[in-house]
């Protein structure tokens, strides 16, 4: 890690274990460099970030069991590539929150912009409000629980993981889906290519109950429908050759 040109202005007003970083004073690179310190989990396991004011790339690339509470709205790619850390945004998140997350938990108390949880491999992303277009695009193993609605093309090309939507889903849900499982409580505007409704069996109710509990959502699993891949796009069908 390169040395910082100026020291990070860290305040510890309330306790010896919570560091407070004010982004109206410090910059995001300084914050992220401090969060990337090899011994951060032992020395300062709890962080609070104030005045984020929609700045991009806050708390990206974390690789330690730390907790980061962000007081306000964040810009693009917040908590991207997260591993092990717990990041909570007390506000709205811009494009690509928790994109490519590997593990840990990211919680957005407000709404998330498009491509929330894009390509994420693992961990839990909770959006308490609604998520915009392409939520969980190309998801590869992440669990995403959305308290409100999701926009169009959500779970597009999803390969693994679970997407739970307590509200409604927009157009083309699960388009070109591989193997991710989708649970929606409300209405689905339209299903994408090769996405179909599937039977809700006991094991699905059980995993949904687990996901809702992990996310702290009180919805009843019995009110959800399950969607998944019809698996018709896996291989080229020779009957379609004339179309090319």
């Amino acid at each position, binding site marked *: 890690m390169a040395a910082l040109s100026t020291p990070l202005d860290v305040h510890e007003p309330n306790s010896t274990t919570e560091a407070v970083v004010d982004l109206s004073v410090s910059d995001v690179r300084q914050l992220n460099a401090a969060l990337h310190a090899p011994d951060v989990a032992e020395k300062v396991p709890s962080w609070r970030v104030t005045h984020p004011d*929609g*700045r991009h790339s806050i708390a990206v690339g974390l690789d330690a069991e730390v907790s980061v509470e962000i007081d306000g709205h964040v810009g693009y790619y917040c908590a991207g590539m997260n591993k092990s850390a717990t990041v909570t945004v007390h506000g709205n998140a*811009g494009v690509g929150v928790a994109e490519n997350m590997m593990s840990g938990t990211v919680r957005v108390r407000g709404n998330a*912009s*498009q491509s929330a949880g894009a390509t994420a491999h693992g961990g839990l992303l909770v959006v308490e409000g609604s998520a915009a*277009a392409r939520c969980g695009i190309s998801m590869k193993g992440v669990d995403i629980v959305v308290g409100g609605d999701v*926009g169009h093309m959500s779970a597009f090309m999803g390969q693994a993981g679970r997407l739970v939507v307590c509200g409604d889903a927009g157009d083309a849900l699960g388009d070109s889906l591989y193997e991710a499982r989708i649970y929606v409580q409300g209405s689905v505007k339209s299903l994408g290519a090769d996405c179909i409704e599937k039977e809700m069996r006991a094991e699905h109710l059980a995993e949904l109950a687990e996901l809702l509990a992990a996310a702290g959502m009180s919805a009843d699993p019995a009110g959800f429908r399950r969607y998944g891949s019809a698996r018709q796009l896996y291989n080229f069908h020779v009957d379609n050759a004339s179309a090319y």
Partner: protein
Amino acid sequence: MCGIVGLHLREPSLYPRLGELLTGMLCQVTERGPDSAGVAVYGDPRWSPPGHASVSLLPGTTTPDEVATALRAAVPGVAVVDAGQTLVVHAPVDVDTLVAAVRTALPDLLVIGSGEEVAVLKGVGHPQLLAAEFDLAQAQGWQGVAHTRMATESAVTPAHCHPFSVGTDQCLVHNGSFANHATIRRELVAGGAVFDSDNDSEVGARFVAAQLAAGYDLEKSLKLLCERFDGFYTLLVSTKDSFAIVRDAIACKPAVVAETPEWVAMASEYRALAGLPGVEHARIFEPEPEEVYAWQR
């Protein structure tokens, strides 16, 4: 990539702060478009005094004094306001009269906006420096739109900058790129339209102007644009009484709207809205694809 911001004020006590608020918003989207910038301000008393028509011009090497001299005989009471790479001319006459006088007396100068309410200022350079050049922070009024440009489709010159204001008191800013603009340009030209640049966004502005001229309202005009245009777009379009937003069917070009009883604001990114008074209580949402959002004065 480009940056868009817009602010439609409902609360008259905020009118004196329009320029200050718009400057703060513009500077937050600098990184989205560092090559040039432009603004449209509705109701500023320096550029658009009540009872006067205004014409915004790109003067090139013509000085403000030369512009004033050229217009004085034909337009009594004409005044020229220097705003850096842009000049604003206003006079106590109707808009068509002033535009015709400018085009006759100064045929080589490009008219970039006209109306009773709107002044359009644009130029090449760093958006923050341009805001200072325009003296934007001192502007007053009830509505403003600004754009920072990262050119992808055409040259970096003042004439290629947004906003495109091609009808009286109209203004359009665009983030994205139109795929079929050349086809639509040919159709508009066949219908009599005259273009000022080869910018694809100008085709959008001329298309909207043609629909408004045909009698459609702004909402219907933008729905027709969605039907006709292929490509990526987040558009913010304003007129003397409306402020409207539309995104293409894919909606990958960002847009966030915040609304309070005092104002409606739109920006490419939330951080441009973060400094607005009362934003912590605003209703914040992202516009849905191909849905027109319009607010009336």
